[in-house]
């Protein structure tokens, strides 16, 4: 598993009080882990700080609501971590 996944899983476990062992790369943050939109703000804040990025939550939410992208693209752990890696790489570029 990637170091990004380990870091994000630790953040979610601590921030949302979720059993760390229940978080896998296939976990859906909302459907599987039961994280609601307000709790996800806490997680986004912790991720923003930990990785020095700004998760584009508004853009993601809009894309999902408008049917332009499935929620899985952003809220399944392995995909969320891939998006984070992309944002970190873009920041370094």
């Amino acid at each position: 598993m990637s170091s990004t996944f380990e870091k994000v899983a630790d953040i979610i476990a601590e921030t949302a009080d979720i059993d760390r062992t229940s978080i896998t790369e296939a976990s859906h943050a909302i459907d599987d882990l039961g994280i609601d939109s307000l709790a996800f703000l806490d997680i986004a804040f912790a991720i923003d700080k930990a990785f020095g990025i700004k998760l584009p939550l508004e853009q993601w939410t809009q894309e999902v609501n408008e049917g332009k992208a499935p929620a899985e693209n952003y809220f399944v752990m392995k995909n969320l971590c891939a998006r984070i890696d992309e944002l970190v790489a873009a920041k370094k570029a």
Partner: protein
Amino acid sequence: MKLEYFQMIDRVVSLDRETLRLVATSRIPSISPIFEGHFPGHPLMPGVLLIETMAQTSGYLLLGLNNFTAMPFLTKVVNANLRRFLGPDTPIEMEATLLHDGSGYAVTKAKITTGGKAVCDAEIMFKILPFPEDLGAKMRANAASLGMVVTEPAA
């Protein structure tokens, strides 16, 4: 300050867009029905209303920084410290600084002082959402009445 109407700020003194900081002042009223219960014969400004005061100060900071285009709604208060009791007719100064400008949310650090002495402080998170109905116009009017410079949004 009118506690019963949740009007916690008397005046916005400054909004600095470089340091991302807003300063405001207020005076705890000398008379309020809230003091009849908190506490009988021993009036004290309730701590929850001090937190509300810090939240409103932060809210106007965020409104000012986003030029009144979206509404901050309180979602979380962390590390709140209530350090001093305040009675009626006490002048206070509030300060809020932007800690993090997230996507659809923001985090501030706010504090209240009186006579230069710390009263309370907290870290406060807001979810930023589009204004419901005509709330934007009302918030702009409220801000203008507090002394903020408010420009009308582009049509």
